[in-house]
C-alpha cells in the first residue's frame, strides 16, 4: 500500500490494525486465564501452594514414571486433582460455552443485547435437565442429562421463534418478549416439577441450584458430560463464523451474498442450543456471562465473528473461573450462588464499559 493511504488511515476515528488489537487481547487474556486457573486451584478452605499444584499436575498429566509422588501428601493430591481441578475445568467449559452461545445469538438477532437466558434457551435447558433428573433417566446413564438439556434448549428456541415469527419475519423486539415469556413459563414448570417430585428439604436446594447456577461438588464426571459437547459446539460455531458475519448485515444482504439463510439459521440455532444445554446441564442457569463477555470482548477485538468467537470463549472461561472463585471465598464456609456472583460482578462491569465507551466517544 502507498504511504499516502497509511497516513490518511491514521485519522482519529480509525481503529488500529485488527491483528494488533487481537494480539494485545491475547497477550492480556491468556496470562489472566492461566492465573485464574492457578488461583482457582490454590485458594479455598485449605490453601495449596503453587509448587504443590504443579507437582500434582505433573504427577497426573505426565506419563507415569516421569515424576514420583515423593513429598506430596495424599490429602493435597485429592484436593487438587479430585476437587479443585475438575471444578475449574467445568467453570472454564461453562464460561466458554455461554460466551460463545451469546456471540451466536447476538449475531443471529442482530442485537448486541441478546443472550441465552434472554431468548428462553437457558430456561429450556433447565427444564430438559430437570425432567431427566426427576424422571430418573440421569440415574440410568448420566449422559442423558446434557442431552436432555440440549434438547430442552433447542425446543425452547424453536418455540420462541415460532411464537415470534409471522410471515417469515422475526422482529427482534417480539423475539425478546417471546423469549422472556416462554422463559418464565418454562422456569415455572421446572420449579413445579421439582416441588412435586422431591422430598421436602431438597426441593429448595435443587430449585436454587438450577435457577441460580452453581459448581459445588463438580467432579471429573461433570467434565466429561460437558467438555465434549462444548468443544463440538465451538468447532461448529467457528465453521459458521463467516455466515454469522453476513447474517449480522441483514438477511437480504446475506442471501444476496450467497448464504443459504434458512439452513444457516437452523444450524446456528442448533449450535447455540448445544452450547447452552451443555453448560446448563452441569452448572444450572448462569445469567449475564453470555451478554457481558461477548460485549466486552467485541469492544477489544471488533465484531468479526471469526475473531470474536474464540476470543469470547477464552475470556469467558477466565471470567467464570474467577466468578466461581469469588462465589466460594467471599463468605466461607457458605458458598454464594454462582449466578448471583456473575450478576453482581457483571452488572457494574457492563455499566463501566458502557460509560467508558461514551466517554471516549465524547472525548473525540
Amino acid at each position: 500500500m502507498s504511504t499516502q493511504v497509511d497516513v490518511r488511515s491514521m485519522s482519529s476515528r480509525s481503529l488500529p490494525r485488527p491483528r494488533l488489537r487481537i494480539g494485545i487481547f491475547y497477550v492480556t487474556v491468556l496470562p489472566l486465564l492461566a492465573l485464574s486457573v492457578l488461583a482457582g486451584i490454590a485458594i479455598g478452605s485449605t490453601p495449596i501452594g503453587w509448587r504443590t499444584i504443579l507437582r500434582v499436575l505433573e504427577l497426573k498429566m505426565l506419563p507415569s514414571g516421569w515424576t514420583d509422588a515423593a513429598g506430596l501428601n495424599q490429602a493435597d493430591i485429592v484436593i487438587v486433582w479430585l476437587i479443585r481441578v475438575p471444578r475449574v475445568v467445568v467453570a472454564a467449559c461453562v464460561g466458554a460455552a455461554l460466551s460463545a452461545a451469546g456471540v451466536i445469538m447476538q449475531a443471529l438477532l442482530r442485537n448486541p443485547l441478546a443472550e441465552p437466558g434472554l431468548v428462553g434457551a437457558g430456561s429450556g435447558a433447565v427444564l430438559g435437565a430437570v425432567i431427566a433428573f426427576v424422571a430418573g433417566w440421569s440415574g440410568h446413564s448420566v449422559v442423558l442429562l446434557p442431552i436432555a438439556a440440549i434438547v430442552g434448549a433447542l425446543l425452547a428456541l424453536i418455540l420462541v421463534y415460532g411464537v415470534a415469527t409471522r410471515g417469515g419475519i422475526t422482529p427482534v423486539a417480539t423475539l425478546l418478549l417471546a423469549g422472556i415469556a416462554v422463559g418464565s413459563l418454562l422456569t415455572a414448570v421446572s420449579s413445579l416439577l421439582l416441588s412435586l417430585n422431591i422430598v421436602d428439604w431438597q426441593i429448595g436446594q435443587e430449585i436454587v441450584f438450577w435457577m441460580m447456577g452453581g459448581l459445588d461438588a463438580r467432579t471429573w464426571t461433570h467434565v466429561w458430560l460437558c467438555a465434549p459437547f462444548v468443544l463440538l459446539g465451538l468447532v461448529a460455531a467457528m465453521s459458521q463464523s463467516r455466515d454469522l458475519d453476513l447474517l449480522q448485515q441483514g438477511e437480504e444482504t446475506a442471501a444476496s451474498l450467497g448464504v443459504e439463510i434458512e439452513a444457516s439459521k437452523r444450524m446456528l440455532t442448533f449450535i447455540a442450543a448445544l452450547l447452552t444445554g451443555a453448560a446448563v446441564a452441569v452448572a444450572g442457569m448462569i445469567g449475564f456471562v453470555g451478554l457481558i463477555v461477548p460485549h466486552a470482548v467485541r469492544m477489544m477485538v471488533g465484531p468479526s465473528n471469526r475473531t470474536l468467537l474464540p476470543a469470547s470463549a477464552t475470556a469467558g472461561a477466565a471470567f467464570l473461573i474467577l466468578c466461581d472463585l469469588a462465589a466460594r471465598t467471599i463468605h466461607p464456609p457458605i458458598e454464594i450462588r454462582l449466578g448471583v456472583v456473575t450478576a453482581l460482578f457483571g452488572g457494574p462491569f457492563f455499566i463501566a464499559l458502557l460509560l467508558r465507551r461514551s466517554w471516549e466517544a465524547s472525548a473525540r
Partner: protein
Amino acid sequence: MSTLEARQISVHRGGRGILHQASVSLVPGELRAVVGPNGGGKSTLLRALAGIWPVAAGDVWLDGKPITKYPRKELARRIAYVPQEQRLDFAFTVEQIVAMGRYPHRGRFSRESEQDRRAIELSLERCDIVHLRRRPVNTLSGGEHQRVLIARSLAVEPQFILLDEPTANLDVEHSLEILELCRVLACGGQSVVLATHDLNAVARYATSVVLMQGGQLTDGGGDQQLLDPRNLEKVFGIRAELLSTTDGQPVYVFHRRSETDSETKFN
C-alpha cells in the same frame, strides 16, 4: 452473453400481491433505471431478480435456466444486490464490510486469495473510500455508508448489479460520482439496474427505463414515451415540465398538482 430475465413474475408478501406479471430482460452493458411512485414495486422487482424473494408465479431466468436451479453461491457470484437502507449496531470496519463481497468466492475456511485482495482494493478505490478503510461503519455518514455498500457489491465482481436507491442518502457530488461509476461499470460490460426517484439522473445517465406503478410495469413503448412529461404527470400525480440546459441536457421541473388546484380555487 449473459442475460437475466424475469418472465411474467408475480410476488406475494403477507398474503398480498405486490408484483403482478412483470417481465424484464437485462443484458450486459446497459444501465437500466427502474422508476415509479413509492409502493410501485421497484424494490420487489429487484429482490425477485436477485433471487432473494421467491416468486409466486412465473420465473426469473439466468442464461436460459431458472435461478432457482442455481446453487445460492453461484447466483451470488453473478448477481449483486444492494438493499435500500441498512444501519448496523456493530462496529465492523469498512474494509471488513467490503471484504464480505468475496464471501461467495471463498470456501468455508480458505484464506483471502490474491484475487480477493485485488477486488477489495479496487472496490475501495472506485467508491473513493480507501481513506475510510479502518473506520467502524457505524461512525460513517449516510453517504459514506452507501458508498461502502456499493463497494461491497463491486467486490463480488458480478455480471449484474442491482442497486436500490443508491443515491437516496448522497450529497450532490457523491451522487454524481456514483451515477458516473454506474455508467463506467455498464460501459465495462456489466449490467447495472438502478431503482431511483431521481428522474433527472435517469434522463441523463440511464440507457433504458422501466416504469412501475401499482406492482406492474407500465407498457407504453420506448423510453422517450415513458419519460414524457405527460406520462410522468399521470403516473406520479404531479405537474411536470421538461426543460433543456445550455448544453442540451434534459431537466425536469416538478410542481404539485394541488398548487394549480388551489390557484384556480382562489382566483
